[in-house]
């Protein structure tokens, strides 16, 4: 052991000697080189940010992509005269001078790091900055990435937005290469598929002169582009919905009832995904633009729910096709008077007339016969009270009440009481009527495509379950739904040449009596005999017939567009094939 300890001593001398040699090497032989670098403080790093993949609609149209932009950046260390810089910038950009100065003087952990002062400068702003460059030492224009959304606020709830990573997210994401100041997906698909869309940041290590201007590049890391998303959404349908809804507050969801592919999703009021801060209002306000009404708006379904009541009644044999009930305009339930929406009443009606006229007395009576348990049982079959599982963050489950809290069979039967549904749930339900009982999970993303065009993952339609509904029941129900549009409550929705089947619904009946606006809704599918579209329109303030007219207008537009499109199928296939070549992200 003594022997070995002696060897050890030699080893110790050797190691310390090695360290000394290296220090002599650095401090004596390379002294002037390192002293010069140190005096000039001339090494900077530039982070160019994280590139994100593109988002395409089902036909290869770009819905979201990164564009090169020019940002105004500053290096705290290179700011020789913050006061002057603040004055010049405030006159160029019309920004508040004292606010600018606070920002510029903010202490930082690394004063050599470039920080973004203003994103996406215009041509004239860039020109102005270069004109005053002599007064702006430490301030630069630097290329960066800016997210562009083709449809602007029209698809904001669908695509979402990106924003600077928060401190909490940073702790989790720093191992994935995300650094402070980087942008990540914060909402919508941008959030849901953030990991997929997010590429890897790139940048430079550069040497600068005394004024902080780049002299040469020492090291470079190339950006790695993120993956692209191809959606089931059709830009033409989405635009039709945006235009049809206009400035009204409400929501529209369009789905393919044969597989659950979402063709369009619109929610209003909306926000500009590039300027989110402007829209920050109280989240409890009913005007909240960040509430995606399609998946998180929970409303009483109103008369649309009569579809469920009808299925329950016919399937359980509680009522036959031609059993008639007299509607006098009101009925007594316990000690309360229950009204039909038509004051003078519908007279004697059977189920074939009750659905098109949406007779509350008929369905109320049927509901009383069925009992609350039976109705809720059928509602549960259609997965009400559960999120549909659509690939968007923030979906709400609605509310499927217990029998005790439901508000009674008469209320539940006409979609009032404690039951709450989301438009997406109603759309899934009406799709199941259209396709004969299949509950398809709604989905938005069809595939994930690598930047080189290779498909990484393809999402297949998911059949949640098949609800057994007898052929007789379906025939009666579907005929009734057609008649809703032919001569019933949604007569305004009819479109020449395309037969539509649907059901209107109005929530907040009590509010109507008080003269307050009602929430009108319409759920439908078309063409009635071979449905390829299912849709739900909800107007926050409006009647159900207005909602139906909007649906009709959209369907008309879709089918006229479809005719136009079928002629150009060939050129579109080519477009889809060549799509990945333009998707390298930032160059």
């Amino acid at each position, binding site marked *: 052991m003594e022997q070995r300890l002696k060897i050890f001593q030699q080893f110790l001398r050797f190691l310390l000697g090695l360290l000394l040699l290296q220090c002599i090497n650095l401090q004596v032989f390379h002294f002037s080189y390192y002293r010069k670098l140190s005096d000039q403080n001339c090494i900077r790093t530039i982070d160019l940010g994280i590139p994100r993949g593109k988002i395409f609609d089902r036909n290869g149209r770009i819905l979201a992509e990164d564009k090169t932009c020019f940002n105004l950046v500053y290096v705290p260390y290179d700011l020789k005269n913050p006061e002057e810089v603040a004055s010049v910038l405030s006159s160029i950009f019309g920004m508040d001078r004292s606010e600018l100065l606070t920002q510029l003087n903010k202490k930082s952990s690394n004063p050599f790091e470039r920080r973004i002062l203003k994103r996406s400068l215009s041509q004239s702003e860039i020109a102005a900055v270069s004109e005053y460059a002599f007064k702006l030492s430490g301030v630069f224009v630097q290329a960066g990435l800016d997210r562009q959304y083709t449809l602007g606020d029209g698809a904001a709830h669908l695509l979402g937005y990106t924003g600077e990573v928060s401190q909490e997210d940073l702790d989790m994401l720093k191992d994935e290469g995300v650094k402070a100041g980087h942008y990540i997906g914060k909402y919508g698909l941008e959030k849901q598929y953030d990991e997929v869309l997010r590429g890897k940041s790139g940048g430079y*290590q550069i040497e600068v002169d005394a004024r902080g201007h780049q002299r040469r590049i020492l090291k470079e890391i190339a950006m790695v582009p993120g993956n692209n998303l191809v959606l089931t959404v059709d830009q033409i349908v989405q635009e039709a919905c945006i235009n049809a809804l206009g400035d009204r507050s409400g929501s529209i969801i369009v789905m393919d009832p044969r597989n659950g592919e979402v063709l369009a999703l619109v929610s209003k009021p909306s926000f500009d995904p590039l300027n989110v801060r402007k829209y920050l209002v109280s989240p409890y306000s009913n005007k909240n633009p960040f509430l995606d009404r399609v998946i998180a708006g929970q409303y009483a379904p109103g008369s649309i729910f009569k579809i469920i009541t009808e299925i329950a009644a016919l399937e359980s044999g509680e009522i036959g096709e031609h059993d008639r009930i007299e509607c006098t305009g009101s009925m007594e339930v316990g000690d309360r008077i229950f009204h039909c929406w038509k004051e003078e009443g519908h007279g004697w009606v059977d189920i074939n007339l009750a659905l098109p006229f949406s007779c509350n007395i008929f369905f109320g009576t049927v509901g009383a016969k069925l009992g609350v348990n039976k109705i809720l049982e059928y509602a549960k079959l259609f997965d009400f009270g559960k999120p549909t599982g659509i690939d968007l963050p923030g979906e709400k489950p609605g509310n499927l009440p217990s029998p005790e809290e439901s508000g009674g069979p008469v209320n539940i039967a006409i979609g009032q009481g404690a039951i709450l549904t989301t438009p997406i749930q109603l759309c899934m339900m009406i799709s199941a009527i259209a396709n004969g009982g299949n509950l398809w999970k709604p989905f938005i993303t069809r595939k994930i495509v690598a930047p080189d065009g290779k498909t990484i993952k393809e999402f297949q339609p998911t059949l949640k379950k098949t609800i057994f509904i007898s052929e007789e029941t379906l025939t009666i129900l579907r005929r009734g739904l057609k008649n809703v549009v032919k001569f019933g409550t949604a007569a305004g929705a009819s479109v020449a040449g395309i037969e539509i089947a649907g059901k209107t619904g109005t929530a907040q009946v009590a509010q109507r009596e008080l003269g307050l606006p009602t929430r009108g809704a319409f759920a439908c599918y078309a063409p009635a005999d071979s449905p390829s579209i299912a849709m739900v329109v909800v107007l926050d303030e409006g009647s159900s017939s207005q909602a139906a007219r909007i649906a009709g207008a959209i369907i008309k537009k879709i089918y006229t567009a479809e005719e136009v499109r079928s002629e150009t199928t060939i050129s579109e296939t080519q477009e889809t094939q060549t799509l990945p070549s333009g998707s390298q992200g930032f160059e």
Partner: protein
Amino acid sequence: MENHANPGKTLMILTSVLVALGMLLLYSASRSISTIQTGLPVYIKQVIWAILGAIIALWLKDFDYRHWNKLAHALYFITLILLVVVLAIGTGRAGRWIKIGWFNFQPSEFAKFVLIVVLARYFSIRDVQRFSTLFGGVLITGIPFLLILIQPNLGTAFLFIMIFFAMAYLAGAKGKHLLILLIAGILMSPLLWMGLKDYQKQRLVIFLNPWKDPLGKGYNILQSKITIGSGGIIGKGFLKGTQTKLAFLPEFHTDFIFCLLAEEFGLIGVLVLLFLYYVFLTQALRITLTTQDPFGRLVGTGIMVMFIVQIFVNIGMASGILPVAGIPLPFLSYGGSAMLVCFICVATLYNLYKNTTLF
């Protein structure tokens, strides 16, 4: 013996000098223009730690080192629990700390000392010439090693391997056996690699090749070399360092404190520091050589190895001859846990000498 100064006392004096030097450097560091400070300046905190460390050392210097032998099992067990706990609830950089009130407790620092004690006990009562004994030592080291590796704290994990090999070698293990273990370890490393998570792999890759990350670690290395080199022979002068003041390096008060010394005191400062360390370590070696008790001798060896590896890896990293690893420079780097462990080690060496000369 009589014509030499008491090496135990020399150690104590050297420790005081080194700690004082550390304070000086931390004081300089705290005057940086850009550190965002919360609470007390680091040098004040370090003074508190040093006082606490000194109290513990003064008490432990009379604590018979052979008690460590009896406590070995319990200490080892507690350490493993703490290492598991830190993985579950750890906070701070790379999740290495357990926050207890105002104190950030870093179990991996204490684990170093515990490993030394446990290995010393194990090798002193078994026949090290046998391969099975050696293999047992691998298991003893391996469990805390893995727990620290996945934190991930690559520097300390590496230190564990070095402590194991050095102690086994000095305990008298056959060179052939050690070579077999080394080769087996290298062959096994791909298995370990596969068990790592992506970000852990990423860190390892950057650890081995920092230029893969020129905006992060690579930038640190360049800046750290500029800092040392620009100090020249006589340095820029106390409090006059520019590099460290401007926060080119994110952790210059902890892992990169050597740069601060090299910049402000130049090659002369470096020579003084290396000389202090050299004298310190030769005194530790003298104590170890005079100790006849195998357990004590192995404890002394382990402590020595620990200091040498830490010094070499830390300064080697700062000067750019070794990859960047988060290992503190003994007595100088800011950090409560590391400081306390240094004092415990010095006190143990002192006691080793005291008990040896009683024979």
